[in-house]
C-alpha cells in the first residue's frame, strides 16, 4: 500500500467557481444579489485556496454487510451495498487548506456577509476538488462507484480515525482530526471510491 499525495492546484485553477452552486450553499436559490457578493469575493478567495489530495488503493473483501479492509473491518450495510461486487477501493482525503478558514474568520469580524459567502465558495471548491479527483480515478481504473464518506448512511463518522491513520493525513496534506471527529481545515473531505480493477 502506497499513500500518494497530489496537488491539483493547476487543474482547479482552470475550473471557475460555479457561482450558482456557491449561491445554493448560501441558502439562496437564484438570487442575483447573492451572486454579486460571491463574485466580489472570488479574487480574494482564490489567493487563499490550495488543492491537495492524498490517497491509497486497498484490496477489499465484503462479507455479511462487513467491508474487510487490510487495516480494519467495518460493518456497514450502506457501504457494503455501495462497494458490492468489487475487490478494490480508493480511500482519499482532500482539502482546500487552512488559509480559506483564516479568511472566513477574518471576515466574520469585518464583514459577516463576506464570511458566509467565502464559506460557500470554500464548500463549492472542496466539492469540485473531490469531483476532479474522482474523475482522475475513473480514468485510471475505468469503472468507479459514487464516493462514499464517513457519516453517509450507516457508515459511522468514527471511521475517520481509521482513514486518518492509514492515509497519514496530517503528515501528507495537513488535515488534523479533532476529538469530535471534525477535520481542520474545515473545508476537507474524506471518502471511499469503489473501483473495478
Amino acid at each position, binding site marked *: 500500500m502506497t499513500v500518494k499525495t497530489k496537488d491539483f492546484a493547476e487543474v482547479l485553477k482552470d475550473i471557475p467557481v460555479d457561482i450558482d452552486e456557491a449561491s445554493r450553499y*448560501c441558502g439562496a436559490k437564484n438570487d442575483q444579489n447573492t451572486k454579486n457578493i460571491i463574485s466580489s469575493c472570488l479574487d480574494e478567495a482564490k489567493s487563499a485556496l490550495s488543492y491537495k489530495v492524498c490517497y491509497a488503493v486497498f484490496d477489499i473483501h465484503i462479507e455479511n454487510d462487513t467491508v474487510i479492509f487490510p487495516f480494519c473491518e467495518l460493518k456497514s450495510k450502506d457501504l457494503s451495498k455501495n462497494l458490492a461486487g468489487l475487490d478494490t477501493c480508493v480511500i482519499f482525503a482532500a482539502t482546500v487548506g487552512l488559509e480559506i478558514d483564516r479568511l472566513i474568520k477574518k471576515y466574520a469580524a469585518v464583514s459577516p456577509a463576506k464570511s458566509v459567502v467565502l464559506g460557500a465558495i470554500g464548500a463549492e471548491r472542496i466539492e469540485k476538488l473531490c469531483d476532479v479527483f474522482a474523475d482522475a480515478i475513473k480514468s485510471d481504473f475505468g469503472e468507479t462507484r459514487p464516493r462514499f464518506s464517513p457519516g453517509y448512511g450507516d457508515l459511522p463518522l468514527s471511521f475517520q480515525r481509521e482513514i486518518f*491513520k492509514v492515509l497519514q493525513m496530517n503528515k501528507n496534506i495537513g488535515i488534523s482530526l479533532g476529538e469530535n471527529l471534525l477535520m481542520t481545515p474545515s473545508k476537507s473531505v474524506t471518502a471511499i471510491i469503489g473501483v473495478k480493477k
Partner: protein
Amino acid sequence: MKVLDYIKENITYLDGAMGTLLQARGLKPGEATETWNLSHKEDIIDVHKSYFESGTNIVTTNTFGVNCLKYDGETLKNLINSAIDNANEAKKISGGKREKFIAFDIGPTGRMLKPYGDLDFEDAVEVFAKNVRIATKKDIDLFVIETMNDSLETKAAVLAVKENSDLPVFVYNAYGEDEKLMTGATPEVMVSMLEGLGADVIGVNCSLGPKQLKGVVERILKCSSTPVAFKPNAGLPEDKDGKTVFNVLPEEFSDVLLTCAKEGVGLLGGCCGTTPEYIKAVVKKTENIKPKEIISKNLTVVSSYMNTAYFGDIPLLIGERINPTGKKKLKLALMENDMGYILNEGINEQEKGCHILDVNVGIPDIDEEKKLFETVTALQEVCSLPLQIDTSNAIAMEKALRVYNGKAMINSVNGKKEVMEQIFPIAKKYGGVIVALTLDENGIPKKAEDRYKIAEKIVKEAKKYGISKNDLVFDTLAMTVSTDQNSANETIKALKMIKENLGCHTSLGVSNISFGLPKRDFVNGIFFTLALENGLSAAIMNPNSDEMMKAYKTFLLLKGKDENCLNYIDFANSAIEIMTAEKPIKTAEKSENITLSYAIIKGLKDDAKRITKMRLANENALKIVNDDIIPALDNVGKDFEEKKVYLPQLLMSAEAAKFAFEEIKATVKSGESTKCTVVLATVKGDIHDIGKNIVKLLLQNYGFRVIDLGKDVAPEAILNAVIKEKAPVLGLSALMTTTVPAMEETIKLIHEKAPFCKTVVGGAVLNPEYAEKIGADKYAKDAMETVRYAEQFN
C-alpha cells in the same frame, strides 16, 4: 563528548527512515510503528544498529507517534522506556568508530491547536511534557522535535522540552512545495521563532525529496545563526508491484546533500524512504568536509505565524490603534468585550500598511492578564502581522508571549533594575525583540548622553541573561516640545548615538512630541521625518494619520527606497481618492439622491455612514434610528423571512446599518441602549461562532445591548453573566452534536439559578423538537427569528 560540542567540529550524520524499514519487515498499513518497541524489540534494535553502522551519529528513538492522546499512562511509559532501551542496546552492540548519540524523538500530536482545531495550547504542551518527563530519566543525549507542520504546535513541543529537561533540542519542520508549513509559516518565520525559543539545531525533514526542499534549506541558511539539519525523503513514493518504492536513489540523494553540506548544512540524514544505504552514500561523499563555522547573522526580526518583519533597511511602522490611551471607542470595546471592534482596528492597520501591531489592553478594572491573552489569541487568528505586546504587567506579558504564534515584540523594559529582572527572563524563555526605554530609577535624563548611558547599561544587563543586543530596540523617548523646546533635539541625538555607537535599532512613540500643541499632526509628521533621517528603525504611530503616512512614504521615495516610485504613486492615488470620497463618484448609484433606508436595504456601507453623519448635524439620533434604520432593517428582515432576499444580502444590510449605528453611537452617550440586554454564547466545547456573530450583529442593529461571551464558554460563566446583567434573554448556539449536552446543561443551570432568563437556541444541529427536548424556551431557525423573539422582552 557532548553532542553540541561534537556538531561544532564535525559534519554530523543523522539516521534515515524507521517506518520504511519496518514495512519491509512486515509492519502493516495503519499499524503503529511504536508498538514494535515492545512486540518486535529485535527488529527495532537491528534497524538502529544498521544506521549506526552506516555512519549515523545520532539515532532517533522509535517514539514518533507515542503520546498520551493515543496511549494510557502505563503503556506510554512502557513504549518510551523500551524505545530508549532499544536504541541504547543498538548503540552498545553496533560497530563503527564514530561518536554515537541517542535522540528522543517527538512527533506531532496529529491534532490541530486552537483556534483552528480543538487542542488547547497548554494541553499540547502537557502532551509533549509527559513524554519528556519519562524520557529525561533515561539515557538519552538530546531531544528531536520533527515533522512538525504547524508553528504553534512546534512551539508547544519546544516549551515542553525546555521546561522539563536541560538536554539540547533539535527542531525539524516539514515544509510543502510552496516552501511553507501547512499552517503558513515560512522558513524565516520558523528560524526567528525557534532561535527565540532557544532551539540548538534548526532543520527541515520529511514531506519531499532533497531537490524540492533544497530551496527551503538555503533560505534557512541565509537567516539562521544556529546549526542547520536536513533530513529529506527519498523523493516521492511510487507503487511498484504492490510495494512502495521511492523515486530518488542514494546516489542522487547524496549528491544534493553534498551540495547542502558545502553551503553550510552541518547535520545530514534522511526521512521517509531512506535506508542505511542512503546514509552510507551521504557519509562517503561528505566525510571530509569541515562544517562551516556558525556565525551570527546579526538580524533583528519579529514574526507572526506567516510573516517576518526585519529591522534594517526599510523603517517599520508599528500601529498604535490597539492601545486604549485616549481612545474612547476602544475603551468601551474592551469593557464590553467587543472583540470584533479590536479585530477591525487590527485588520484596518494592516491594510493601511503597518508592519507590526502594538497591542495594549490596559484600562482600569480590567483583568489584564486574561484580556491581553484573549486579544493576542483573537488577533493572531485573523491578522498576519507580528504583534508588539505592550504591558507593564509581567504576568500578562508572559501569558501572552507563551501562546504567541511567532517571535513577538516586547514592549517594554527600561533601565530600572527591577523591570529588567522581571522582563529579561521571560524574553529569554519565549524569545522576542525587546523595546528598551532609555529611562531608569532617576527618570528620563534630559541629556542625550545620559540616555545613551542607560542604553549601554541595558545592553550589558541583557547580555547577562543571554539576550543579544540584536534583540534590543531602543526608544529614546519623544517628550513634548511644548514644555521643553530642546526635547526633540535630545531625543534625536540619543537615537543617533545608539544607532552609530551601540549598533542597535531604535523605535519611537512619535506622537508624544506634540502633546499639548494644536494641529499635532503637523508636528508629528515633520518630527517623524527628522527621526527617520537620523536613522530611526521603527515608529509606533497612527496609520490613519495622513501627515505621518505622507512623511513615511515621501521619505522612502526620496531616499531611493521606493523602486519606480510605485509605493508613493499608489499612496498618492489613494490619498486623492480619500480626499474626494465625499463627492458622489464612487458608486454607480447617484449617491446624492439616495436615502439612508435605501443605503441600508442595498447594503451600501459607506453611503449609510455618510448620510447618517450628514443627517446627525440637524436631526435627533433616536429619530433616525426609529424612522429610517429600523424600518429599513425590518424591510430586509421581512424579505428574508419570505425568502425574497437571502443571508448574504441580509448581512450586507446589517453591516450597512452597523456603519450608520457607529455614527450614531458617537453622538449618543453609552448606556442609552433602547432595548433589553441579551447574553450570547457558543456553548462549552464548541468553537464555531460564525452563526452566533450573525445573531449578535442583527441584535445590535435592532438596538439590543448584547453581551457576547464568545465561544467555548462554560455553563457557570454563562450563568454568572446572565445574573450580573440581569439579562431576560440568553442566546446559545451549538454547531456540533457533541456539544448539545453542554447546551442542555447550561439551560438547566439557567432555569434553576436564573429563572427570570429565557433561553433561545440555534445552530446547525438543532431543530424545534431537539430544542424542546433539551429544555430551551425557544428554537430560532435564523438570526431574524432570534431578534423577533427578543423583542417580546422590552
